[in-house]
C-alpha cells in the first residue's frame, strides 16, 4: 500500500503520509472551519462548557483515586481528601465549583440558542444533541451529589428516587429497583458512583462529540441569524466566515481568562458560595434516622423542583382549565380531522385522570413528576414550536425579546422559590410561575408568528476592532 502524498515535512509529514485523517480533521474542525466573524459575548459559553467538562473529568479522576464509595467511609474519605491529600482541597473545590459552573454556563449557552434561534433549521440535530447533553448533565449532577454522603446528599437522593414511586402500578417497585434497597443505602451509593464516574460520562462525551460534529456539518449560527454559507467568495469560503483557529481560539482564550478569574475567585475565597454550591447540611454525615427539617436540591435543579412542588391538588383545577383551553385552541388550529379527534381524545383522558373529583384521578404528586419531566423535555420541541419567520431576536418584534426576558425571570423566580421552604404565598407564586413557564412554550407556535418582523440583512453586522 502506497503512502499518502503529503504536503508536510518532518515528523508531521511522516505521520500525514500514514494517517492523513489527523491533519484533514484538524483542518475541518479548526484551521478551515469557517465561523461567522460577528460572534458576541453569548458565543463564549460553548467553549466554556467544554473547558468545564475537562476540569470535571480531570479533577474527577484525581478524586476517585482517594474517594471510597462505601457508606461507612464515603463522608470520611471526602474530608480525608480535603485535609490529608496534598492539594486535595483544591481538586475537590474545583470539582464542586465546576458542577455549579457547568450549569451556569449551559443555561447561558441555551439562552443564547433562544436569543438567536440557533436551534432552527438546519441545526435541529445540534439542538437535540445539546438537549441530550443537558439531560446527561442533570443525571451526572444528581448521581454525583450522593457521593459525599452528607445529610443533603442522602435525603436529596431519597426525595428524588421517591418521585418514581408516584408512577401508578410499577412506581414503588421501580423505586426499590433504582435504589437497590428499601431506603437509600450502601447499594445505592455504589451504583450511583458507577453511574457518575463511568456510565454517564461515557454517554456525555459521545454526545458532546456528536453535538460538535453536527454543528460543524451545518456551520455555526450567529447573532444575526443568517447563513454565512449562502454568500461565498470566489475561493469558496464564506465571505463572513473566519477560520476558527486562530481567530476564535485566541478570542476564546481571552474570554476564558476572565471566566477563570470568576471560577477561581469562588474556588479560593468562597467555595461554599454562601451554601448554594456546597450546602451546609452536607457537612453532617448521612443519617437515615434523622430527616433534615428542610430538604432542597442544589440550586441548578430548583426551577424544575419548584414546578414539582407547585403541583398540589388545588392546582390540578388550574391545570385542567389550562389543558381544556389549550385543546380548544388546538382544535381550531389543526388542519386534519384526525388530529382534531386525537386532541379531543387525549384531552378527555387527561381530564379524567387529572380532575380531583374524578374517580380515576391519579395522585397530584404523580402529575407533579410529569410536569417536572415535561418542563425539561419541552426544550427538545423548540425547533418546531418556534414558527418565527426569522431566527434572531434582533429582527423579531421587540416584544418577543421582552417575552423571552420574562421567561428568564420566571425561570429565576422558580429557581429561588425552590430553595425556600414551602409557604402558602410562595406556593401560589410558584404555581403562577409554572403556568407562565408552560404558556411560554405551548403558545409559542402562535405568538412567535405575530408582530412586525424587521428585514434581515444579507451580510452579518460587524464592526472591525
Amino acid at each position, binding site marked *: 500500500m502506497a503512502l499518502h502524498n503529503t504536503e508536510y515535512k518532518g515528523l508531521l509529514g511522516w505521520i500525514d503520509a500514514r494517517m492523513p485523517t489527523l491533519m484533514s480533521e484538524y483542518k475541518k474542525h479548526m484551521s478551515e472551519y469557517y465561523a461567522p*466573524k460577528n460572534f458576541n459575548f453569548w458565543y463564549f459559553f460553548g467553549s466554556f462548557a467544554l473547558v468545564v467538562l475537562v476540569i470535571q473529568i480531570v479533577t474527577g479522576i484525581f478524586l476517585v483515586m482517594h474517594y471510597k464509595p462505601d457508606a461507612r467511609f464515603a463522608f470520611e474519605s471526602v474530608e480525608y481528601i480535603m485535609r490529608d491529600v496534598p492539594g486535595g482541597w483544591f481538586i475537590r473545590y474545583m470539582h464542586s465549583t465546576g458542577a455549579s459552573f457547568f450549569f451556569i454556563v449551559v443555561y447561558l449557552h441555551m439562552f443564547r440558542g433562544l436569543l438567536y434561534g440557533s436551534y432552527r433549521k438546519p441545526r435541529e440535530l445540534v439542538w437535540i444533541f445539546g438537549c441530550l447533553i443537558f439531560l446527561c448533565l442533570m443525571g451526572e449532577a444528581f448521581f454525583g451529589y450522593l457521593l459525599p454522603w452528607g445529610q443533603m446528599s442522602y435525603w436529596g437522593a431519597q426525595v428524588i428516587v421517591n418521585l418514581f414511586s408516584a408512577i401508578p402500578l410499577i412506581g414503588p417497585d421501580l423505586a426499590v429497583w433504582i435504589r437497590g434497597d428499601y431506603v437509600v443505602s450502601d447499594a445505592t451509593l455504589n451504583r450511583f458512583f458507577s453511574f457518575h464516574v463511568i456510565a454517564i460520562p461515557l454517554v456525555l462525551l459521545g454526545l458532546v462529540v456528536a453535538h460538535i460534529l453536527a454543528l460543524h456539518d451545518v456551520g455555526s449560527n450567529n447573532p444575526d441569524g443568517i447563513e454565512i454559507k449562502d454568500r461565498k467568495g470566489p475561493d469558496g469560503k464564506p465571505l463572513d466566515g473566519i477560520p476558527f483557529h486562530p481567530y476564535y481560539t485566541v478570542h476564546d482564550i481571552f474570554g*476564558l481568562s476572565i471566566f*477563570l478569574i470568576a471560577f*477561581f475567585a469562588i474556588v*479560593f*475565597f468562597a467555595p461554599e458560595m454562601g451554601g448554594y454550591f456546597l450546602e451546609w447540611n452536607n*457537612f453532617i454525615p448521612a443519617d437515615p434516622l434523622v430527616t433534615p427539617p428542610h430538604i432542597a436540591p442544589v440550586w441548578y435543579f430548583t426551577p424544575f423542583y419548584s414546578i414539582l412542588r407547585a403541583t398540589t391538588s388545588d392546582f390540578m383545577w388550574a391545570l385542567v382549565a389550562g389543558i381544556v383551553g389549550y385543546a380548544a385552541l388546538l382544535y381550531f388550529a389543526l388542519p386534519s380531522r384526525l388530529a382534531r379527534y386525537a386532541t379531543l381524545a387525549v384531552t378527555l383522558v387527561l381530564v379524567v385522570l387529572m380532575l380531583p373529583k374524578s374517580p380515576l384521578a391519579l395522585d397530584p404528586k404523580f402529575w407533579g413528576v410529569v410536569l417536572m419531566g415535561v418542563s425539561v423535555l419541552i426544550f427538545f420541541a423548540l425547533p418546531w414550536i418556534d414558527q418565527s419567520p426569522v431566527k434572531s431576536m434582533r429582527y423579531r418584534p421587540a416584544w418577543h425579546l421582552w417575552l423571552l426576558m420574562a421567561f428568564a425571570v420566571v425561570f429565576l423566580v422558580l429557581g429561588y422559590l425552590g430553595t425556600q421552604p414551602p409557604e402558602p404565598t410562595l406556593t401560589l407564586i410558584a404555581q403562577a410561575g409554572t403556568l407562565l413557564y408552560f404558556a411560554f412554550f405551548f403558545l409559542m407556535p402562535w405568538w412567535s408568528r405575530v408582530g412586525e418582523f424587521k428585514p434581515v440583512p444579507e451580510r452579518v453586522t460587524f464592526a472591525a*476592532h
Partner: protein
Amino acid sequence: MKRLIAAFALAFAAGSAFAAGAALHLDRWPDRSKDVAALQNGARLFANYCLGCHSANLMRWNRLNDIELDDRQIKDFLIFGPQKVGDTMTIAMNPKDAKVWFGKTPPDLSVIARARTSFDYTGADYLYTLLRGYYRDPASPTGWNNVVYPNIGMPHVLWERQGPREVTIVRTAHAAKGLVRTTTTVDADGRTTETSAPVAETAETGTTVSFKPLAPQLARQYDSDVADLVAYLVFMTEPVRADRARIGVWVLLFLALFTVAAWRLNAVYWKDVK
C-alpha cells in the same frame, strides 16, 4: 420549664438584649481565626474540655502545627491518651454508651462549625451563643438547660469557668384568663421563683431570656475563652482555609496578568478581520 423554653423566641445576654422574633437571634462571634494565641488557647480548651465526649475523627493532631504548635508541645500538653501526633482526635467513649448516658451520641466536632452554618447565621455565631447560653434547670436530667438548644443533652461542662449566673425568663402567653406574663427567675443554685401577672391584650407574646452574671469578671473571661474555643472549631472545620485564601491571591494575580496578555494577543490577530 422545658415547654417554656421550647416555645422560644428570645433575647438574652447581659448588656445586649435582642428583639424577640420567630428566628433564633445569636450573638456575633468576635472573629479570632487569624489570632494564633487565641487558636492555641482554643485548642487547649478543646483538648481539656471537649475531647472527653466529642471526637474529632477527621482531624489529625499534627495538623495543629498549622497554628504554630510543634509535635513536642502537642504530645506533652494536649494528648492525654496513648495517641501519636499522626493520629486523629478519636475518643475512647463508646457511642452506644454515650447514647444511653446523654440521650444522643455527642456529635463528632471535626466539621461542626461548617455543619451548623445556615443561610441565617454562621456556625461560629451559633456555637459562640450556644456555649454561653446555659442556665440551671432542676427539671432537666443534667441540671442544665440551654436557650439556644432547648433540652440539650450536654451539661454545662465549662460552668466553673463561667461562674454563677441568674437567669430571668419572661414569658407572655395566652392563659385561661387572658394574656399573662410569667416571670421565672432561676438563681445560681437552681432555685426557682415564679410570678405571674395579667397584661393588656395588646402586649406582644413570646419569651425573652436574660442573664445576670454574679461573678462579672469571670464571665467576661469566659466569653473570651469561648470566642477562642470557637476560633479553634472554625480552624478545625477547614484547616486549609488560611492557605486557600493566601494562594488564591496569587492565582488571581496571575490570571489578571494572563488576561492582559490574552487580550493583547486577541487584538493582534483580530486586527486583520475587516
